[in-house]
């Protein structure tokens, strides 16, 4: 699957025509073809093919050690794949560093959220991307923009954007991390276990937020162990099993029973894989 082939479909981008792999659907924002990753003798990813369309939530599910985290780290530029190709908006790209992923418009929200508890919301939102005026931090511009982004995402539970992030609840922290991810014109947001540590009402808030992202045309990949959440929020499902992507497709093709089968055994009599 690693042989380049002709593009099958109109390119959405001007510029030099680049070869897309066979079967690459140009309507997908991100397409993985034959992605593999070795850690020494361990094969963490085995020829993974995945299409992630814009404006949809793709849930990546699988048991511990199935390779979900390795896969998103390959997309986010943290691990370089050992083999395979990544297509972004129909063009072949290589994502060597987190910065490269960010420049393409890929933002990742890790489970630990990577927030600084000792900084306030505005400071966290702009961390590493501060606005300045003549070399001096432009706090007012940053605060206004933060309020705008939070209002835009209907994040209304924080009382002040100058609150320290350490004082926020789990759901609020998740919301801030997501808002930071989408602030920089991201086209794909990857979220690792966004609801793992949350209570019922906060989980609902975060799932709501994920749906709003998709409604804005952003592609979302969500890793989750919680099938209730997956079926509540996902448009598409992709199941990983021992480094293989064993099944993927629209959520209507699955039900919780078949999903559990796929997660635990890698196959299910109930799906047409």
């Amino acid at each position: 699957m690693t042989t380049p082939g002709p593009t099958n479909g109109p390119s959405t981008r001007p510029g030099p025509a680049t070869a897309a792999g066979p079967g690459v659907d140009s309507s997908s924002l991100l397409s993985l073809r034959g992605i593999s990753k070795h850690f020494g003798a361990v094969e963490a990813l085995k020829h993974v093919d995945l299409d992630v369309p814009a404006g949809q939530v793709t849930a990546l599910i699988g048991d511990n050690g199935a390779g979900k985290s390795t896969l998103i780290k390959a997309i986010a530029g943290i691990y370089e794949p050992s083999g395979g190709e990544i297509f972004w908006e129909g063009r072949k790209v290589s994502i060597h560093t987190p910065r490269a992923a960010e420049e393409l418009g890929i933002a990742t929200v890790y489970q630990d959220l990577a927030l600084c508890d000792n900084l306030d919301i505005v400071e966290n939102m702009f961390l590493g991307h501060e606005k300045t005026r003549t070399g001096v931090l432009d706090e007012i511009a940053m605060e206004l923009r933060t309020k705008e982004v939070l209002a835009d995402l209907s994040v209304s539970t924080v009382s002040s954007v100058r609150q320290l992030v350490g004082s926020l609840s789990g759901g609020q922290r998740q919301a801030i991390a997501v808002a930071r991810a989408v602030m920089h014109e991201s086209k794909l947001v990857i979220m690792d276990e966004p609801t793992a540590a949350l209570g019922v009402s906060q989980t609902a808030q975060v799932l709501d937020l994920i749906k709003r992202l998709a409604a804005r045309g952003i592609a979302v990949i969500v890793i989750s162990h919680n099938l209730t959440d997956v079926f509540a929020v996902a448009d598409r499902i992709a199941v990983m099993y021992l480094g293989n992507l064993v099944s993927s497709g629209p959520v209507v093709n699955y039900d919780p029973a078949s999903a559990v089968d796929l997660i635990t055994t890698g196959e299910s009599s109930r799906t047409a894989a």
Partner: protein
Amino acid sequence: MSDAGSTPAATSDGRTSAMGQFRRLRQGDLGLVPVLIGLLVLVVYFQVRNTVFLSAGNLTNLFIQATIFILLAMAETWLLLLGEIDLSVGYVSALGATFAVILLDQQFHWPWYAAILVAIATTTAIGTLQGFLIIKLRLPSFIVTLAGLLGWEGVLIFSIDRQGTGGTIPVQEKVLYDLVNANLSPLATWIFLMASIAIFCWIIIRHDQSRRSSGLDSVSTWITWAKVAALVISGIVLVLIFNTNRGSFTVLHGMPYAIPVDIVMLAGASFILTRTKAGRYIYAIGGNAEAARRAGINVDRYRLLAFILTGVTAGVAGLLYASRLGGISDGVDGGNLVLLAVASAVIGGTSLFGGRGKMVNAVIGGLVIATIYNGMALIDMSAATQFIATAIVLVVAVTMDSLARRGSTVTR
């Protein structure tokens, strides 16, 4: 129960912001309130025990003592914010001053500015070297600077004894000597302090106004004006203290030069910390280095910058120290100096765990330490009691830091 209330983010009435202040208080970010109360208690106690304490002469002396603690504490603050520490800062600052004093001596006769530059360059180079070892080789700062504490003392003793002046080199050059031992004229004292306060008030008012005009929450106007009034009053009180004649036989008045030196250093350091990316990154790295790294910040570069800034600040502190002692000797107790520096920073409210603190905390903490030492000497307390009292104040301060830290990470 919804978390932290469900007030929309767009609310901008004064009540919300007042509640924000209150929330910060509850989070343990008490600011300077407790330490200022502590300072007041100390002042009252010493004044009751000995009425000389609040005399202009003694207060000026206290401020001079404090200038050195303050600068050393500021030097330490750069690293404490990262969760690092520099145990060598006492000897490093003394070593820089030693080089300056030697170069100003009869033998070399360098101009004062060149000697001062050498002193600061020396401490900066040492800070950079230690920082480089700590960052590149991933060594703990505690150990590297502990080695520094021992090693630089050795270099200091070697350098001084080589001069063959019996272990002490006096400062004979006028500018360095005058740094602590001479004063601005009363008029210059008025002008300098009032101009400093005017600039500071202007910054506060402008900050407040630009927030208001951009439609952002701001503290109530009366809080701003109360701050301004407090600043102006304390400025005037300072001028009156410094401009009172404190000589017995000759007229002696005006502000010692060391104080403007501290004010300029404080302004510069505070500017870097609060208004520049570098300062923001130092806080971020101290709070969550991994988050800073993922945000694309070159963590090592900014950690090294903090070590460099510690070196620069220590260089200035050493010059004040040599000036105050009127020379430098091989018996300098850099170990005690660094402990008092860390104590000053922590007493002022800077966290030992990184990510929390301000330069102004070093000023307040330095004043507390100077007050203890000055006051205890006035009421003839033994050195033993002084040590114990400092220890108690330090433990109280660290306890408050620890409680504040716990309070600020409570999830509700």
